[in-house]
């Protein structure tokens, strides 16, 4: 999934956050591979350097390759996808 995995068969990211009506692409001013998530998705304990980040079934895209996600050159299709994260 990641940028330099080989061979890559999936590449999940939310697109590039942009103003309504603007392309979700960083070359058009979008914020690279970034999306808003609920404030409750993050719990932080700064004193001990710990954090918990979790969300479920958020909508994003599967660009299949990082090159397709970055260049949007039509080298692969773009499918709707969802992702869930639970990291601590």
């Amino acid at each position, binding site marked *: 999934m990641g940028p330099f995995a080989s061979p890559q068969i999936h590449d999940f*990211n939310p697109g590039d*956050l942009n103003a309504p009506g603007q392309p979700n692409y960083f070359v058009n001013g979008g914020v690279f591979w970034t999306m808003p998530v609920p404030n409750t*998705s993050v719990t932080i304990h700064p004193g001990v350097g710990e954090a918990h980040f979790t969300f479920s079934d958020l909508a994003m895209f599967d660009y299949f390759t990082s*090159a397709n996600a970055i*260049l949007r050159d039509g080298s692969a299709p773009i499918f709707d996808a969802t992702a869930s994260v639970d990291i601590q």
Partner: protein
Amino acid sequence: MVSPAISPGWRPLLGAVATGFPWGGRTALAAKPGSGIPSQLPDGSPIISDFFGLEIPWFSPAEVDPFTGASDPVANPTTIWDFNGSLGLIEANGVSDPNRNSEGVPRRWSCDVRFMTGVFRDRTGRTQQGTFCFL
């Protein structure tokens, strides 16, 4: 279409949490109405930009590694500009559980996941509170 799933059970190779993280040089004080849409970084990784042949407003984990302290002085681990808050970053890789993906086979995976929670200046210049994910 195969329904992709990101396997749980990630093994962190690099993780960090930073707080009081001002980027953009200004400190936001209170939430007001506005677009709620942050701005992209004004610059990006020269390594990645050279690789793809265009400037991408993002820095790779290697460039912002908080453990080695070898970060490029201009590298920014956030993806939003005019931000003051807490940031978490994890770079990890592994092999998926074949019993927990729709293809039924183990697959190598890697990820760079970051959260940013705090206040930011939106595109109308208003201060907002919000939480964002880079994935």
